[in-house]
Each structure stands twice: as structure tokens, then as C-alpha cells.
């Protein structure tokens, strides 16, 4: 199955004085897929995206988009793109319908206002002023503005940051619907669950560099046949935990939370149970799971995605 590449980014660099916000980033974005840049705050995800959206100039690097080589994204390209910025507002005294209509007029061709409103589930709020919308509704409106021209490529910068779980779920369903209609989506997030749930392809970024890429499954598989065991050990010290080392790959303690990485689940479980009996410490809130992207990041950088 030949994937067509919609956008190719080569050696993108952007620095601010001494700081290299984007440090030689390269990736390919395939058609009809969700492509995610995952990383902690300050990793350079938004800066990268803003360069691709045409509102920031790169210091060096090349962008090939819709088959054209560009240094900077131009107006013709913008006709075929949709952008959801990380931060932004609409005129507070415009009605929802008026916002969509305004943005539709910026493009040569666009969907009807009603279609868009249905798509983002704001049809019943068509006559409401922006200033009276909730945070989740505003985000859906912003997504609507990004979809108004039926784009082939959509950028979503941190689409669910700051939203409550219900709103987040609403956005996720819009994104999956979008993907199923054949649109390519480039997304940034620092939420591991989001990356795992939505993405076909993930690039992990840290300090301006790409440190890993692949599908969520592939990335998790880099940790091998690992299993992760987490539990709460009230007041256990390093010394207390030392005996566990022998049967597993790694043991980490952060406060009361202990994380054990092991390739031999059964042996480790046995030694854990024995340890708990000896220590007279209960293994409370224990969870056994497959490694996820958070663990991958941890393994690569020694830090968590969320500080």
C-alpha cells in the first residue's frame, strides 16, 4: 500500500538567540492519516507547527507541501490547509454563524455554514455570541473555522489542552471522523493518551529534536517485551526496594509510586509478593500494564512528558 506523502519537512531550524527551539527536524506526513508530534512543553512542537502554518519564518530548512517546494508557506497553499492555533480568540461580539461565514469568505471554495455547524455540533448555538460560549464550544468553533474550506491537510495545535474530559472526548470524535473522510491531520499534544488514541504515526520531540518516530505500537515495542508494574509503597526507602532489582529491568521510585519494568513478569511478581510479605508493606493500587508512550519517553530522556 503506497502511502502518498502530502508534506515533507527537511532539516527545519529555528533559533531564538542561543536557544534552538527547532533543531534540525525532518519528517514526512502521509495522506489520510493522523500524524502527531508528541513531547513536553517547550519541546518545539508548536514552533514547528507555526512554521508549517506560515506564521513563523524558519532560519533554515525546506518544506515540500502538495508537491511544491517552499521556503515559506504561501497563500495558494493556505487555500488547501486548515489550521487550529494553540491560542487564539474570535471577536467576542460575533455570533457563531457569523464567524464561520467570515472565515468561509477567506477561501476560494468552502462548505456551507450549516454543514460545518453540524460537523462541529454547534448547530443549536448558531445564533449565540462567541463571548457566551464555553471553553469546549469555543474550541469546536475554532475547529470549524479550520475545516470551513474542506482542507486536504489540517493542523491541530494542542486541540484539547485545558478542556474538561467531556469536551476532550467531543474533540477526539471530531478528529476521528475527519480522518475517516480522508483528510491528513498533523497534531501536537503532550497528552500520551491522546497520541495513542488518535494517531497513526507519532514523532516524539524533546528540546527541539526528533528523538523517536513510528506508530504508537512500534514505539512501545522498542521497549521490548516489557511489562510495567506500578504500585504504591507507603514510606518504602531505596534500601527497602533494593532486593527487587535482581529480577527486573528497572525499578524507579517517585515518592510513594514505584514503577517496575520487567521482561519476566512471573518471576518479578513472585519476588514482589515475597518482598511485600517480608517488608510487611501492602502493594496498594497495583497496576500491571503494557508499556505506553510515556514509558518510551521516560526511557529515552529520563523525564516524564508531564512535569
Amino acid at each position, binding site marked *: 500500500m503506497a502511502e502518498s506523502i502530502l508534506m515533507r519537512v527537511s532539516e527545519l531550524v529555528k533559533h531564538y538567540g542561543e536557544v534552538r527551539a527547532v533543531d534540525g527536524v525532518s519528517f514526512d506526513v502521509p495522506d489520510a492519516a493522523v500524524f502527531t508530534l508528541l513531547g513536553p512543553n517547550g519541546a518545539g512542537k508548536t514552533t514547528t507547527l507555526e512554521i508549517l502554518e506560515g506564521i513563523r519564518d524558519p532560519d533554515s530548512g525546506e518544506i515540500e507541501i502538495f508537491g511544491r517546494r517552499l521556503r515559506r508557506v504561501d497563500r495558494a497553499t493556505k487555500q488547501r490547509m486548515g489550521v487550529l492555533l494553540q491560542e487564539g480568540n*474570535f471577536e467576542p461580539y460575533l455570533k457563531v454563524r457569523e464567524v464561520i461565514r*467570515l*472565515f468561509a469568505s477567506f477561501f476560494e471554495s468552502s462548505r456551507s455554514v450549516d454543514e460545518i455547524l453540524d460537523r462541529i455540533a454547534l448547530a443549536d448555538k448558531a445564533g449565540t455570541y462567541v463571548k457566551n460560549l464555553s471553553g469546549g464550544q469555543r474550541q469546536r468553533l475554532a475547529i470549524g473555522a479550520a475545516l470551513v474550506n474542506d482542507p486536504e491537510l489540517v493542523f491541530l495545535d494542542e486541540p484539547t489542552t485545558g478542556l474538561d474530559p467531556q469536551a476532550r472526548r467531543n474533540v477526539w470524535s471530531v478528529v476521528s471522523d475527519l480522518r475517516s473522510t480522508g483528510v491528513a491531520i498533523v497534531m501536537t499534544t503532550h497528552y500520551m493518551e491522546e497520541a495513542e488514541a488518535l494517531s497513526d504515526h507519532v514523532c516524539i520531540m524533546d528540546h527541539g529534536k526528533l528523538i523517536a518516530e513510528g506508530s504508537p505500537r512500534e514505539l512501545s515495542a522498542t521497549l521490548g517485551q516489557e511489562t510495567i508494574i506500578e504500585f504504591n509503597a507507603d514510606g518504602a526507602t531505596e534500601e527497602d526496594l533494593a532486593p527487587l532489582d535482581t529480577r527486573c529491568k528497572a525499578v524507579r521510585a517517585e515518592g510513594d509510586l514505584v514503577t517496575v519494568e520487567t521482561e519476566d513478569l512471573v518471576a518479578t511478581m513472585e519476588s514482589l509478593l515475597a518482598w511485600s510479605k517480608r517488608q510487611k508493606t501492602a502493594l496498594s493500587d497495583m497496576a500491571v500494564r503494557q508499556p505506553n508512550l510515556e514509558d518510551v519517553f521516560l526511557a529515552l530522556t529520563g523525564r516524564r512528558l508531564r512535569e
Partner: protein
Amino acid sequence: MIDVLLVARTHLVTALRERVTLFWFLIFPVFLLVLLSLIFGQIGQEGEITFTVTLVDFDRGSEGPFAGVIAGVFENLAEPDTAGGDPLFNLIRPDAADDLNAFLDAELVALRRGRRAAVVAIPAGYGRTIERRLFASSEDAEGEVELALYASEGNASSDMAIEVIDQVLAGVDREILTGAGLFDSSESVPHVTARIGSPEGEPRYVDFLLPGIVLMGFFTNGLFGIPGAILFSREQRVLQRYWVTPLSVPRYLAGLSIGHLTLCAFQFALLYLIGRLALGASVTFGGYGPALLLVLAAVTFMAFGFLIASLAKTGNAGMAVANILNMPMMFLSGLFFSVTGLPGVLRVLFYVNPVSYLADGLRASVGVEAGVFPMSLVIGVPLAWIALSSAVTAWRLRWDVGR
């Protein structure tokens, strides 16, 4: 094209929906127009005001043909007129048993405190003095007493009352002289009042005021509305949402300008209708001259707004600059008060201020007064400001908060 028009519509609609903007741009100029017309329309209408005046006649009860003549005149004027209208004076007199000196002192205090418009004290022997002056061939100044007219200078109704009383007493003068056979009123030369230079007859103050208020409306709109729209939209990152679409900056500016000029048109229409229908203005803005100047004014002030937007970093700073410039530019332009006799620095500001030329030119072009500035300056100075503002805006205005 539709994108430009929708941007224009957005600007217009948001301005009208925000109650604060609505007040300052539409309601406040109307308020000012109505208030100033009502107030300044009253000057010269003393006939409709009743003055509270105290009369203390120390000469009462004395003999002679002229004792009580003054008092009599005042009492007459304190009666409602034949048409049943209000009398000219509300007269305060002492009771028969009052000590006149104490009464006078108390009334003077009341005058000082603004509760009386004037106090007239007729001294004892005044009737005699009049007699002597009429019939004595030489000036027999001994024993001559003066009528004391007490006023509170600087108090508007007191000043007006004094003028009225002066006229009343002048009338009494003539009556006495006529009665004594000395003055022949048929020999009197009448006097008339005429206004020059206005073909439609007596112009009203509102005709003079209306062009000024319209300009003030355009001015506040440009000074506050444009920087507000640009700076706050930029700060709130509303503009950023536009720049990731194909909408270009020039098209956005075109839309903003059209929206702004439409708002000015609304202001003009509202003020014009109220001026003509409610306040009786007779001035029309028909013809190329007034129309051209109105458009020029709207564009000049809009350019000024862009100038401020490009020099201020935040919305609040822009509003601050606008507030600082607002008053001096409006008042030092002859918009409301004539500006003769300004000292050095302020005079320079007057000549630099584009509003001065536009106000003068607009009034001249609607026929309300002969202009002071030649047309070349009336058009030239605002154009120079437009050019300057455009240059600075093109050079300095930033469309993104951070690139």
C-alpha cells in the same frame, strides 16, 4: 471581495453590539448636540426667564412727584403680562414693619449666596434728587443720592438681571424726561439688528454646531475605534486566526477601513436627522464640497487612528494615547470655541491640527460662515497628515505579537 466586505461587516457589527462603543460613538455626540443646542439657544432669551430681585425702597413715603416711580415700575414688571405669561421679576419686598437696613443686609447675603439675581436699593431722598436734576439748571450735587444696584458678578443670572434692569431703568429715564417735556420720543432714532453674510436669514446655533459635532463624532471614532480594533484584536490573538488563512493583511485593512467609514456614515446620518428633525437645523450637506470634506475628514481621522495603532504596543497604551490627544485636539481646533488670542505654543498646535482646517472648511462649504483658511490648506493639511500616518503605519505596524 466578499472577504473584504465581511471583514467590514464584522467591524461594524461588533462596534454596534458592544454597548460601550455604541454609547461613545453614537449616543454621546447626540447628547452633546442636543445639550449644547438647548443651552446656547437660551442666550438672548432673557424674556423667558423670571429673575428674583429684591427691592428696598428707603425713599418710600417721601413726597414729591418722583417718589416711588422706580418702585412702581418694578412692581408693574412683577405682574404677569397681558398674555398670561410669567412676569419678568419675582419681586422680594420688605414687610411694612421690617427694619430696612437689616432687611437689606440679609438680602445682600442672599444675593451673595446665589438666591437672588439682584438687589435694588433706592436711597432716601432719591425722588428729590431726580427732581433737582430735572429742574435745576446747574448741577446741584449736594445731597444727591445714587440708586444702588447690587449684583453678583460672574453669576450668570445676576449678570443677565443687571442687563435687564439697566434697560428698565433706561426706559424709566426716557419716561421721566419725556414727561418733563425735555425729551421728544418722536425724534428718536430707532436701531435695528442685522446679521451679515447668511442668505437663509437668521442661522441658528445648531447650524453652526452640527458640522462641528459631526466632525467630533468622526474624530472620536477614528482616534479610539481604529486603535482599539487593531490593538485589542492583536493582543487577544483574534488577528492571528486570520493570518493562518489566505486572508492577506491589505485585504483585512481594506475591510477595516470600509467598516469604519460605514460607521462614520451612521454617525453622520443619526446626527443629521436629529439636527434637522428635532432641533430645527436648516443646514444641508448637499453638494460636492461638503461631501468631499466629510469623506476627507473621516479618512484623515482613520489614518490618525492607524498612526496611533502603529506607535502603541498594547491596547491599553493606545487608549491612553488617544485619551491624551482627544481633548487638546478637539478644543484647540476652533470646533467649539473660537480660538483667537492663543499664546505661542497653543497657537502652533492650532495650526498643526488637521481638525482646525477641516472644521473651518466644512463650515464654510455648508454656508454657515466664511472660511478663514484657503481651500488649499483645508485639503492640503489633512492630506499631509494622511500621508504621514500611512508612511508611519507601513513602517511600524506589526501584525503579529511575536514572530
